């Protein structure tokens, strides 16, 4: 994820909280703490995020036909870890910058599994670290 400006907006936090089935407590106010996985929604502010249809870029989902199976589309999500240096609250303006982490392979029942780690640091306007996210994706490799 590369989000140069990820404003933690009340309406966005409300929509995210609703999607998690929370009882509707109304529009959050400045300083209200976002759900602990909210940083992931920084994808909305990544101009090149590949899992969102973008104008002029082919989309692999169904339309007139059933879609396209893409090669190496990032694999499946195997693990997700967050370290909170402080809570994320409405009114924060974050940046998100990702870097690759470790890579390893494991022999699975149906082929070789390749694991890739990605580390994303979310910082506030004072450049202080707010959340460190580490995600692991897994992809099945052809024999």
């Amino acid at each position, binding site marked *: 994820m590369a989000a140069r400006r990820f404003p933690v907006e009340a309406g966005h936090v409300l929509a995210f909280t*609703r999607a*998690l089935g929370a009882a509707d407590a109304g529009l959050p106010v400045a300083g209200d703490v976002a*759900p602990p996985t909210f940083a992931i929604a920084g994808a909305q502010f990544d101009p090149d995020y590949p*899992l969102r249809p973008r104008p002029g870029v082919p989309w692999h*989902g*169904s339309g007139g036909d059933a879609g396209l*199976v893409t090669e190496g589309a990032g694999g499946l999500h195997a*693990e*997700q870890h967050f370290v*909170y240096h402080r809570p994320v609250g409405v009114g924060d303006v974050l940046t998100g910058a990702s870097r690759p982490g470790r890579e390893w392979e494991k022999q699975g029942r149906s082929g070789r599994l390749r694991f890739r780690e990605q580390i994303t640091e979310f910082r506030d306007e004072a450049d202080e670290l707010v959340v460190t996210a580490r995600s692991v994706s897994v992809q099945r490799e052809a024999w």
Partner: protein
Amino acid sequence: MTPRELAVGQRFETVVVADLKRTQIVQYAGASGDYNPLHTDEIYATKMAGYPSVFAHGMLTMGLTGQAVTGLVGAENLLRFGVRFTAQVWPGDTLTVRCSVVHVGARDAEFSVSTVNAEGTEVMAGYAHARLVT
């Protein structure tokens, strides 16, 4: 939550979704920005990707689980939260989060977190570390 209120081995159980609807998965896609058609496009998921239906984002399961965890410790007190996704979550699933206290310190506590479906299959396993109010 204070250290006095917790003891190692204590367990908390919360149902975080009953009969998961495809619409809630769509709702999560819209809010999170992850529009992977495996989660929202039944035709793509079944005909192209070979799954029996769409399935929930791992991050929806983690988000639902997070609601149970912060319900216990308070969102502002969470220090670490991490999970492994161990099985897919399908429309119709009912998910229960089990949090067990594994460590209580003077100012913090650690929990093991397990989310299971109605058949008892674990779909997600992880941990949470939280500050306690003293």
